[in-house]
């Protein structure tokens, strides 16, 4: 069944778990470690088929981006635009 027809995907859970895994990955972690952590998460089971196609080199690059531009802020959901325009673009 295509993912876009799957009723069980919880976008909020996906986003939280992905950001946690990317931020937890230290500079010595390779993409396989990140993939293992995500695939072992029972809350992400509805995304197992999708995650099975994820390439570790992509996750490793995403972790690199998170280390460089991401900001952990336990107190809030988010609010801190940069003023200098310096970040990875899209």
């Amino acid at each position, binding site marked *: 069944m295509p993912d876009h027809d799957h009723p069980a995907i919880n976008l909020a859970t996906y986003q939280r778990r992905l950001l946690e895994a990317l931020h937890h990955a230290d500079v010595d972690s390779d993409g396989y470690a990140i993939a293992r952590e995500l695939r072992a998460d029972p809350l992400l089971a509805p995304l197992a088929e999708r995650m099975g196609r994820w390439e570790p080199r992509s996750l490793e690059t995403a972790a690199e981006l*998170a280390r460089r531009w991401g900001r952990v802020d336990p107190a809030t959901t*988010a609010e801190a*635009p940069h003023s200098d325009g310096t*970040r990875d673009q*899209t």
Partner: protein
Amino acid sequence: MPTRLTPVRVGLSLMTTEDFRAASLPLFADGVVDALEWSPDMLWAPCGERHPEPAWCAALLDHYEHAGRLSGHGVHLSAFSAEAPTRHERWFARLAGDPRRYRRFSEHVGFMSAPGFADGAPLPVPRCAETVALGAAALTRIARVTGVPAGLENLALAFSESEAWEQGPMLADILSAASTASTAEAPAFLVLDLHNLWCQAVNFAIDPERLLAAFPLERVRELHVSGGSWSHPRADPLGRRFRRDTHDGAVPDEVLALIEPALARCPLLEDVFLERLGGTMLTEDERGGFRTDFMRLRALVYEAAHA
């Protein structure tokens, strides 16, 4: 080949830094910059105040705004964050207070925040009903707040080849849902970033022209063109480089090669913007390279638009 209904302008995405000013001013002085793109949220401070536009930027923005050639392009909404209501409310309140009048206004596919995580580079979202609803709601609200058509830009990062292939159909779903929800006079549009598309093509060994065809090209109003950089993930047993959209280098020839096929298939295209991050042109060689990129792009667009 569809008949082109509108002229195509070639412009710049404006940055506020001194190196960008030095690099771009000769182009403005020569009158070769047809249009301008501006990200007002680059100047929105966390506590609510608005940093002033540098005087030279304000003069350019005034000029292009009055000529009806100023496009808005948000970078900090994180429209697809499922749990960022405060961020979204603040962003829209500031957008409502933005005094500039744009021709159209766009944001990005992807999310960068979740509870506990305040910012970062945009990350992919799966194609699902909730994603489509979030994107359509954001576009509808942007159109309502700005009073101009709202659009979305495709993302560079994908975690798999299948995610690269699903982005075009997902954008078609979102733009269609947003257009249904808004008005027929201002349908939602696609900002097709050719470097982002090429990032996915080269990272997953996809023919870029085939990937191009997977996007809703009939909705493209703007193209983005830029350079980027390479990562070298240790996780790849083949040692392949991974392309990133960092806007900090020259435009690759492979991206410029996509101009002609893109123009041939995007009948409603109106503007092509060259993007280069401020602070990345610290030498005269880099600034000259930026101007060369712009003039090459302009020549290619004009040639293809009038073919």
